[in-house]
């Protein structure tokens, strides 16, 4: 049993790049459309809510509301971009296009494929999150130099959410099931993690739930950095995000093995 599981784990440290490069080649053909699509949604939220609500809300944690919201949107867009890439695009490659099966007939293992897909989804998260961070910096809502600190956190956020979404993709019989994950997990997480208002607005016991949410840890790292303030508990937040990246990866690989290779 364990011997068979070991056989599907990544074969080495570089096989996954072949899978990543396949996705990059496909993405390159429609890069502009893809970037605009990924950016449009968070930008609309940012300016729609930021300017409209901002007038009523005034300042939050010493910043204008739109600047506060921008930091939340950086993390939230990374979450959305990597989740959607996994549950729609990677799921289609796995199930409808049978691409994974074709790859499994080569020197790649299932773990190589999952890792390649997770890193690819994180790459798209990186593009989406970094673009918003740059727009925020251009508009003066964030410190330019903060982008250096923010980029690795966005990437880690992307890995964590791709890894989690991979479990959902491994279990879902069809696309219909993904809506549950979006509405019951991701949307509540957006509100419980302090993306659109400070967590301190919530009742105490609800606030404690945020401790278990990867998005909350991502925001706790990104927000102070973009404001040019020192962040607290950096290693703790990084460790939580790291665990969310690693554990679901192994779980999803085991689930996918059962699904594809039984």
């Amino acid at each position, binding site marked *: 049993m364990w*011997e*068979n599981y070991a*056989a599907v784990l990544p*074969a080495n440290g570089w*096989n996954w790049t*072949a*899978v990543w*490069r*396949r996705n990059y*080649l*496909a993405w390159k*053909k429609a890069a502009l459309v893809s970037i605009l699509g990924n950016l449009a949604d968070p930008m609309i939220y940012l300016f729609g809510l930021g300017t409209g609500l901002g007038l009523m809300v005034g300042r939050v944690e010493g910043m204008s509301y739109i600047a506060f919201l921008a930091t939340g949107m950086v993390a939230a867009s990374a979450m959305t971009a990597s989740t959607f890439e996994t549950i729609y695009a990677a799921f289609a490659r796995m199930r409808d*296009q*049978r*691409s994974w*099966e*074709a*790859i*499994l*007939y*080569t*020197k*790649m*293992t299932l773990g190589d494929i999952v890792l390649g897909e997770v890193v690819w989804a994180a790459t798209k998260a990186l593009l989406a999150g970094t673009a918003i961070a740059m727009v925020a910096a251009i508009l003066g809502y964030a410190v330019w130099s903060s982008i250096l600190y923010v980029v690795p956190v966005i990437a880690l956020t992307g890995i964590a959410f791709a890894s989690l979404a991979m479990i959902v993709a491994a279990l879902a019989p069809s696309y219909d099931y993904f809506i549950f994950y979006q509405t019951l997990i991701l949307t509540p997480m957006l509100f419980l993690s302090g993306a659109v208002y400070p967590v301190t607005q919530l009742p105490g016991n609800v606030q404690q739930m945020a401790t278990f949410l990867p998005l909350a840890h991502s925001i706790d790292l990104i927000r102070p950095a973009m404001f040019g303030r020192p962040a607290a508990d950096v290693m703790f937040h990084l460790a939580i995000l790291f665990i969310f990246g690693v554990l679901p990866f192994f779980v999803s690989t085991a689930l996918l093995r059962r699904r*594809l*290779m*039984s």
Partner: protein
Amino acid sequence: MTAIAISLIDVTKTYLDRTVVDRFSFAVKEGECFGLLGPNGAGKSTIARMVVGMTPPDAGKITVLGAPVPAQARLARASIGVVPQFDDLDQAFTVRENLLVFGRYFNMSTRQIEAVIPSLLEFARLESKADARVAGLSGGMKRRLMLARALINDPQLLILDEPTTGLDPHARHLIWERLRSLLARGKTILLTTHFMEEAERLCDRLCVLEEGQKIAEGRPQGLIDEQIGCQVIEINGGNPHELRALIKTCAQRIEVSGETLFCYSSAPEQVRIQLRERTDLRLLQRPPNLEDVFLRLTGREMKD
């Protein structure tokens, strides 16, 4: 002594409570074309999947190119090319890009892949389609591209799951011709098919399967001679049971399948004489083939 490319010993595979492959054994020698012949659902594809390590067997021993499978399937797969039954080409890409992307899954560098692409395109007769989108190719072209893709790592062993199912006769003949050229180059082929003609034309040896069990094994012509060994007259029209009584004295064996009566006889002219009054019948006399072998062994036709 010729080396053994694939060996299965007492392999069993069960899904839930259904035994798909039942204590199955066979050995494929290097350089030969070995066929797994049987109707849909006989377990052919499951065996092909087990050989490449995609599905672990519940019992039994599998060795492919010297490596134990599935434990070291990855090692074996480095020298295997697989053509699956269903089109799994990358629709986002052109013909050339499909080959490029696939070569990377064998750890080949872009330069190495680009060096072999021209010969693969030539082999697949797709030189003029190199930069065409896969979505626009005909069924036969797609299958030839899948064959070229399976050759990218210059494999010793090819595993083909129903390579010509769904193709028109012209496209099918072109695939057969290409496969023969691979055999001439010394490649080993494991082929699953439910086409008698395909098995007879290509296979050096074959196994006939039904419901996960081997019911016959041997050279196609050897099996035909051994199991049938005489001429066949197919009779259509009329009441098969009434006809049976009429001709049974001059036939070795008579089988009825659907509306057709198969009469196996060393004296076919006698059968014709018996039936000369019956203008309502259509008679077709032909040499025996693997279809007759399957009918004899299972009591039914293989046609899906």
